């Protein structure tokens, strides 16, 4: 800003206000278009800023060790968020993912430990059960035409009950797993890469996201998932068998939940029917912060990965800064609200 005011502005302030308005609208407009084009940029920017901010505030935050610890902490919820993303892309929501994960981990554990079934077979059974839970959700949504929210609210309770029944409300302890089924803890094993300490669970999460990215962006199936989420009637008229696509989404999501179950055993070290009680909502949080629209058909699959990392960064950063745990929740809450507000704003572009 120059010190000498523009003579026109000085004489006619209302005009100056108007022109300022115009200028800011132009800039906002461009930002809106840019974000519409690249919706994942919102979480990317938030992640970069939060990492930078916590790097300044919190001691030791910026170490390879701490950053890799964050990855370890988000591995399970991140994998679950991948499953959730698929359903949300079809304008649905899956409240049962967490319950499926815990139930499958119990099945894998009990079959291996109590029934002495070879671990690889237990794992395969677990994956099949995951697929079956997805098929159940998918059938209810496509055949009975129940809203996904209600469907999965119901199956969430059902799977939770089955989980308590199958587990006898008993935890399989870490030592038992070590002696009888060490393979179940595979994804908890650590390895170092530079100064970073990673688990195979982190690698699994990254692979799941990479495969989904490929499937959603480079295959016909992926384009159809987006089309069905965007406008199911248009997709059907354009010749897409929308029910089949929806069904496949729920089944794939169930399989990913089963993989998350295996990963969760490694993360916790034991098989507990009461673990990850909030995983359902945490996965939705990651998806929403990651910029996938709850109205379906919009957003990149990489968003939820970044969304999960943002939550991890906030939790780690606030903890290292010595802030009370309750503020982690407080911050996450605001992140969700801001993310959805931005999504609404970006979507206005089409009207």
């Amino acid at each position, binding site marked *: 800003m120059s010190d000498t005011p523009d003579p026109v502005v000085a004489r006619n302030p209302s005009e100056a206000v108007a022109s300022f308005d115009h200028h800011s609208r132009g800039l906002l407009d461009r930002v809106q278009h840019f974000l519409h084009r690249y919706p994942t940029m919102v979480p990317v920017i938030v992640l970069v800023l939060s990492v930078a901010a916590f790097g300044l505030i919190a001691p030791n935050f910026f170490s390879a060790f701490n950053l890799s610890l964050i990855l370890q902490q988000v591995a399970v919820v991140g994998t679950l968020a991948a499953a959730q993303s698929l359903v949300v892309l079809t304008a649905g929501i899956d409240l049962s993912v967490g319950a499926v994960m815990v139930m499958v981990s119990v099945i894998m554990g009990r079959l291996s430990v109590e029934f002495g079934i070879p671990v690889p077979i237990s794992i395969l059974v677990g994956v099949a059960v995951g697929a079956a839970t997805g098929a159940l959700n998918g059938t209810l949504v496509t055949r009975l035409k129940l809203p996904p929210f209600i469907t999965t609210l119901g199956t969430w309770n059902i799977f939770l009950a089955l989980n308590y029944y199958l587990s006898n409300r008993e935890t399989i302890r870490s030592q038992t797993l070590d002696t009888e089924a060490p393979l179940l803890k595979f994804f908890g094993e650590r390895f170092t890469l530079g100064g970073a300490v990673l688990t195979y669970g982190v690698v699994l999460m990254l692979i799941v996201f990479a495969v989904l990215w490929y499937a959603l962006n*480079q*295959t016909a199936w992926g*384009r159809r998932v987006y089309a069905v989420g965007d406008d199911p009637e248009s997709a*059907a008229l*354009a*010749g897409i*068998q929308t029910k089949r696509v929806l069904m496949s989404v729920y089944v794939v999501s169930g399989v990913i939940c089963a993989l998350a179950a295996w990963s969760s055993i490694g993360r916790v070290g034991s098989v507990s029917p009461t673990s990850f009680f909030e995983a359902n909502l945490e996965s939705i949080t990651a998806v929403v912060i990651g910029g996938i629209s709850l109205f379906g*058909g919009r957003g990149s699959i990489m968003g939820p990965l970044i969304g999960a990392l943002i939550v991890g960064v906030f939790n780690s950063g606030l903890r290292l800064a010595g802030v009370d745990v309750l503020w982690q929740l407080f911050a996450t809450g605001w992140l969700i609200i801001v993310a959805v507000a931005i999504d609404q704003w970006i979507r206005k572009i089409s009207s």
Partner: protein
Amino acid sequence: MTEPLLYARNLVKRYGRVTALDHADFDLYPGEILAVIGDNGAGKSSLIKAISGAVQPDEGEIRLDGKPVSFASPLEARRAGIETVYQTLALSPALSISDNMFMGREIRRPGVLGKWFGMLDKPAMDAFARQKLSELGLMTIQNIAQPVETLSGGQRQGVAVARAAAFGSRVIILDEPTAALGVKESRRVLDLILDVRSRGIPIVLISHNMPHVFEVADRIHIHRLGRRLCVINPKDHTMSDAVAYMTGARLPEGIAA
């Protein structure tokens, strides 16, 4: 006269107590633009849905090229070469022009990538989409990767028509293509329709807009009370004749009440 390409006789469709199609007939000849007009509720859209596979008639027969057909879904009609441009356009707003053009019939890469990994051949799809759009004079669209929702109403209509023209080998059905458009954009869509006919593909045009119908149609099918009332030549009748027949104010010559 030549044989009709698409032929239907005695189509009946009932919805509960409502009879939407009451022994309706339909003929479309090769290379023509046939307009279908009728009052609201006359059963135009039921007729169109029946021949495009969106609904299945309770009675009656449909023949394509002389062979009896019955379409269980729009997909089957499409496979038989009947493309429909719905009033809603059936485009996915958040997807690109190219994605939309190939929705449901994507091209895969040759070789292992396509066969085993289902990898799309995006360059080929983009090139094809660009070519089809420019053939129809729609190349004001710069970026084939642009989401459809960022296009104007006329451009969207253009994309939907281009999609139908690109794949509709036998028949293209257009449902109210100019209803949502301004004067200039309507003009372009009408030119598009004439252009598609000049490629030898017959068109069924459903419209309420009499000037548009009389401008481009070779024959006009007037639908009334669930059946075909008559087919007129636009050169022999005026628009007010057509409206009178359509609404029942007057009967065409040679048709008994």
